[in-house]
């Protein structure tokens, strides 16, 4: 009796799991198929003819997709590096010290993770016009820091909260300079946090749309902008190919770090922004 019942529940679980699996991969399937289709008309369930045209186009030197890819990688890398350089010290201050006004500082750092980009980017845009950062790559990188930096700080403050600074004191007492102590003691200890936080920052920057659209002003065309343009212009095959290229870094990062990405890390909130 109880075994039969548990058989039913376990079958039910597998069934629900199958539904969930289907639902999770479903939207990616037509995208992948389109990238290999030559004309795929209603009501065909699958394309009549297959081709690599879309991929040839996307990977050709003249189409601009590759330029856009390198540009996007460059912008996201720059935003990541800046987030690390600025976020690590801030994380140290928040993770290791108690001080007056700490809650307000935390609140100020938390705010950009919840307030949508559209609410701040219009104001930023009208200032960037004056300082000449509009329509420039540095301007885009700078505005990407608004969503990326908070996650870096959150991850690092979590890391530093569990970090024992007496290792540094020990190193200093053994004769290491401040710089050497940082290099040989602090950095190895916080490296996992830098990697996870950096990957988050990269992915968050990688997925930015409205910030790039407004600040880039059509001059800085990152991959999502290009993807959106092709998607609305009806070139489904090229859209499919660019879409596949666009999700690649996320998959690579996932394969490299799957075990770090547990929901327990405060940084998982970063996924909400991707």
């Amino acid at each position, binding site marked *: 009796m109880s075994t039969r019942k548990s058989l039913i529940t376990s079958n039910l*679980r*597998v069934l629900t*799991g199958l539904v*969930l*699996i289907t*639902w999770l991969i*479903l*939207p990616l*399937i*037509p*995208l992948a198929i389109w990238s290999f289709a030559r004309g795929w008309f*209603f*009501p065909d*369930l699958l394309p009549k003819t297959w081709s690599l045209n879309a991929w040839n186009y996307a990977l050709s030197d003249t189409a601009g997709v590759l330029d856009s890819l390198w540009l996007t990688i460059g912008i996201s890398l720059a935003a990541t590096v800046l987030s690390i350089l600025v976020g690590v*010290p*801030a994380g*140290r201050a928040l993770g290791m*010290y108690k*001080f007056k006004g700490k809650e307000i500082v935390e*609140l*100020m*750092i938390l*705010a950009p993770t*919840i*307030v*949508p980009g*559209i*609410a*701040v980017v*219009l*104001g*930023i845009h009208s*200032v960037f016009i*004056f300082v000449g950062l509009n329509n420039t790559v540095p301007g885009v990188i*700078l505005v990407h820091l*608004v969503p990326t930096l*908070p996650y870096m*700080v959150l991850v690092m403050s979590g890391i530093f909260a569990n970090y024992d600074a007496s290792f540094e004191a020990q190193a200093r007492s053994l004769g290491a300079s401040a710089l050497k102590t940082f290099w040989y003691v602090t950095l190895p200890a916080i490296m996992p946090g830098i990697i996870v936080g950096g990957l988050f920052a990269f992915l968050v920057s990688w997925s930015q*749309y*409205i910030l790039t659209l*407004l600040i880039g002003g059509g001059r800085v065309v990152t991959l999502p902008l290009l*993807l959106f343009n092709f998607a609305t212009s009806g070139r489904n095959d090229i*859209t499919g190919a660019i*879409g596949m290229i*666009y*999700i690649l870094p*996320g*998959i690579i*990062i*996932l394969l490299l770090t*799957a075990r770090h*990405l*547990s*929901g*327990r890390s405060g940084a*998982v*909130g970063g996924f*909400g*922004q*991707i």
Partner: protein
Amino acid sequence: MSDRLKITLLLLPAMLIIVLLFFGGLAIGLMRSFNYMPVIGLTEPDLSAYFLVFTDREFYLSFLLTFHIAFTSTVISSILAIGAALLLRRNFVGRSIVNFLFQLNLTVPHLVGAIGMLYLFSQSGSFARLAAEWNLIAKPSQFPALVFDPYAIGIILQYIWKEIPFIGVIVLANMQSIGEDYESVARSLGASRWQTFRHVLLPLIFPGVLSASVMVFAFTFGAYEIPALLGANYPAALPVLAYRKYTDVDLAARPEAMAMAIIIAILSAVMIYIYIRYSRRRIRG
């Protein structure tokens, strides 16, 4: 070096960026929404932009639509995410695949999901083709409008697709750190499976669910590219409307766009308040 100086120096670069860019952006938006911009000679703040916004029928339709999108997506995603987390907590064939797809889905940008939804649910999309295959429809226009539609079904479906894994991963981690002992206690005190879920597990995971939901609500309320791709032209979602006003050839519409941005910001401030209240309580136990 005193601790105070050290803390200040450590925080300075990050705070500079956040204060200048984020709060600066907000402040400038706020000033411009009041038509106050001394640099370009506007020194008399007024409420005309808000007056225009609040007398515009499109704004109300747009606000309601956006609220409907955010609310419906958040509620449905949260419920399904709790279900998915309950499922993933148990061992079953295929669990690791679901787990992997959950994480994979987290890394796929919303825009890609939105394009996928477009290809699935549009009137010439995969589901319409399936319907034609089964002779349910003869031509694309007979397939129900699920994208560019007034109820924003396509947008909501895309958010549900993206946010189930997001909330699910957080809730699952939450459940794993709570463990199953509280539920065992309840069972042994005479609670049925349902009572155990309702009176024990749900209250325990509620703070985690709520803080994840708040993030989802704020995101779905303020996202631009998804409604821009999948939404109807009129009424458009609030962020789309704000962007259109801002980029209107008529520069006089900019303060209106700023006013809408401020309205979105105020709504997210409410979300932050809820988030802080519950996440703090969770931390303090």
